[in-house]
């Protein structure tokens, strides 16, 4: 009698796959109520977060000391914060309710040079959209990018524009010139693509089938991914055509992330599933992982060259995985669960709401419904 398990290829043990995060090194306090979103700055030095208290905060990553904060709108949660890629400037995009803000956080180390550069990048589009708003062909008026008022401007919040429904997702193109927003309730206006240097908002996906959940640019090609509840569609941006319909088989997608190589993606779902797709292989998942007892809220690949990915769940934990994409086309990605990170408290059925990776180190950060952010190293 042969044990069928013994015929399976043996997975390497987590010990052999170091380094990966194993412990909570730093806790970030300050938010009142849930922290909805967080992001590590491209420099790796700062952590931005946004939450139910309507504030955006920036803290020093390794010490947890808050160095800057701003109250965007009273009584309206900040649902997402995302840094613009690139280290020559410090630009943060944040969304609260239907409003999107572009911010140059007034951190003390923001010397004149960086401050000037950040302001230049955010302000480059003034006057542009007023003339060139023709791209919005329908009757509705073009989205106006405006100054947010002197109180916010004094805090470094330099631009504001409003979309029609609550914005839940912001996703930058790697060069920092474009970013996409997703408003799940937005129907035909759910997905917008914004051109920073022109202060221009476009709505290229008028005929989206289903409720939009998330969107992301391909890391190197002019391809754009849009997730609805059950499918992820990829579009060729230059030809304006649908490329692929990816079918994870999940009932309700919460988030997805594209591997830095561009050919693999991970999907997390409210029905507790984590799915790995090899886009060259199939539109169906290559691997389905079910480790969490509650919904998965966020999934993310390490973007700095380490074969790591993680998910965050309402059960209060994060799960860290080794996920190596093999160059050889005949070989499939190797996926090994490495570590469950526990520490966040579950509050009113909500656990960990967002996660991000450090740009180089094997560290991740998590945003909790318990009001804390944590650095895991």
């Amino acid at each position, binding site marked *: 009698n042969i044990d069928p398990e013994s015929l399976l290829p043996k997975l390497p043990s987590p010990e052999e796959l170091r380094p990966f995060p194993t412990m909570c090194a730093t806790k970030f306090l300050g938010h009142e109520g849930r922290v909805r979103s967080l992001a590590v700055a491209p420099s790796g030095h700062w952590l931005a977060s946004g939450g139910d208290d309507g504030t955006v905060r920036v803290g020093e990553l390794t010490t947890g000391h808050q160095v800057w904060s701003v109250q965007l709108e009273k009584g309206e949660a900040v649902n997402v914060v995302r840094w613009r890629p690139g280290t020559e400037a410090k630009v943060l995009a944040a969304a609260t309710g239907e409003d999107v803000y572009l911010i140059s956080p007034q951190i003390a*180390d923001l010397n004149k040079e960086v401050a000037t550069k950040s302001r230049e990048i955010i302000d480059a589009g003034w006057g542009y959209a007023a003339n060139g708003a023709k791209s919005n062909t329908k009757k509705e008026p073009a989205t106006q990018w405006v100054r947010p008022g002197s109180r916010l401007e004094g805090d470094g919040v330099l631009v504001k524009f409003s979309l029609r429904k609550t914005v839940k997702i912001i996703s930058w193109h790697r060069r920092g010139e474009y970013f996409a927003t997703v408003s799940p309730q937005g129907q035909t206006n759910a997905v917008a693509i914004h051109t920073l240097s022109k202060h221009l908002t476009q709505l290229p996906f008028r005929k989206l089938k289903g409720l939009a959940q998330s969107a992301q640019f391909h890391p190197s090609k002019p391809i754009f991914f849009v997730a609805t509840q059950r499918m992820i569609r990829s579009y060729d941006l230059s030809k304006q055509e649908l490329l692929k319909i990816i079918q994870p088989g999940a009932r309700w997608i919460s988030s997805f992330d594209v591997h830095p190589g561009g050919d693999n993606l991970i999907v997390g779902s409210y029905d507790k599933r984590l799915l790995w797709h090899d886009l060259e292989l199939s539109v169906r998942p290559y691997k389905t992982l079910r480790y969490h007892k509650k919904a998965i809220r966020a999934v993310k690949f390490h973007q700095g060259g380490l074969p790591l990915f993680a998910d965050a769940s309402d059960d209060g934990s994060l799960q860290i995985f080794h996920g190596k994409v093999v160059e050889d086309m005949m070989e499939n990605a190797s996926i090994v669960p490495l570590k469950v990170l526990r520490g966040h408290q579950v509050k009113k059925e909500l656990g960990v709401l967002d996660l991000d990776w450090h740009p180089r180190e094997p560290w991740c950060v998590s945003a909790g419904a318990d009001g804390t952010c944590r650095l895991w190293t």
Partner: protein
Amino acid sequence: MTTQMRLRGGSRDVDYASSSQVRIQLSTRDNDISLPKNPGPLLVNTNLRRYALSTLVNHLLKTEKPIPFEFLINGTFLRTTLDEYLTSRGISSEATVPLEYVRAAIPPVYKTSFMHDNWVCSVDVLSVTSPAAKWVGNARIGFNQERVISGDYDGLLRVWDMTGDVLAVSRTVREGGPVSALKSVKFISPTQIASCGMDGVIRLWEYTEDAENLTASLSPQIELCGQRRVIESIAVHQPSSRILSASGDHTVGVWSTNASEAPNPPEELRPSHRGNKRQKVQPSTTPQRGPLALLESHTAQVADTIFAPNDHTVAYSVSWDHSLKTWDLPTSTCVDTRSTTAVLFATVSMPNLSLVAVGGTAGHITLIDPRDSTTTVSAMTLRGHKNFTFSLATDPDSAYRLVSGSADGTCRVWDIRSSTTDKNGKVGASVECLQRESGKREAKVFGVCWDKDVGILSASEDKFVQINGGAKVEARIPRGH
């Protein structure tokens, strides 16, 4: 040849009939307490403890006043009788036991704490024996006249006396002072202080005390600017008028405290004093100077830098790029790079051992011999901290001891003579673990300083500078505040 010595085990009654004997071989690494001639193996009772052995060594040294000694057997301090030690290690009493004796260290007991309004990043001391006093040959710092400086996240530089009174404080934001958190503060001399921090500017301050009027003042002298990000740490060397700085812009800055020697700073990096954030930006009226050199080689933010203790033309730096670099300052070249496995935050040199200690996110401290040409990177690792090591300092009384400040909320004292060897090489464990007297658990310790007279000072997230000192300061520093 074996000398027989009959010794009583301290004040205990010793049952000689039942106790066996063992040969010991005494040795020490400290020349001033070494035995005039090697006594060879000594036969002693196995029921002896530290105290009796210390008496034995004092007897052999013919000391006038007894020196308390501790004993290391194969890198472990003797805390039991010899018999219990040998039994627990399974060592035959037939063998000759090597006994290394060291001066017993005074436990760094808690003395006092100085309270701040925000997290404290950095601390330094001016005492008779501190470098800043020795450089200028100023021995006029009398009884209880030591000074402590601290830098916090509010950007305030404070000068304290030993009773915990603030003698002087730098200007607050409201008064037009810089907004920026202070990451590092250092005495250059009894009348000059350097500070640096989040805004990437090094500030030199003139510090004066008027004993008659009981006043002290802290006035800005020069602003040194030219690095493009936060300056995490500075090192000062008064005799050569040099300052080194570790910056988030990946460079190590080399500066002069002498305004006539330094170039003008780049225009775009001149600091401006933002008042309250809604106030207008005011140009600084303090003279500004640029760097003598910016040393480039690190590929990520530099976190700490020091002068080599015996040669101020050599510098060491550690970085988020995981490496320790050695710099030749006259030529501004990086002459050596040692890579470790983690982000590094702190470094200190152990001069008599030609070792450099580095600490960071790995949780352990690594000792590196930067002159060692072999491929071995680590000479020893010190294990015990449960989180990042943010700061390191050496014991002014011992070439073998150092202290570390950690994100786990403790300071640990290490004696590198105390070590064991496992599959990863030489491993040391701490000999002391200092908790926060504030009671705040896991309050990160960002800065440590070890002064011969004052003791171990630690700056922490708990908003206190805590002082743990040797016995001789006990009567001088009142507890509490």
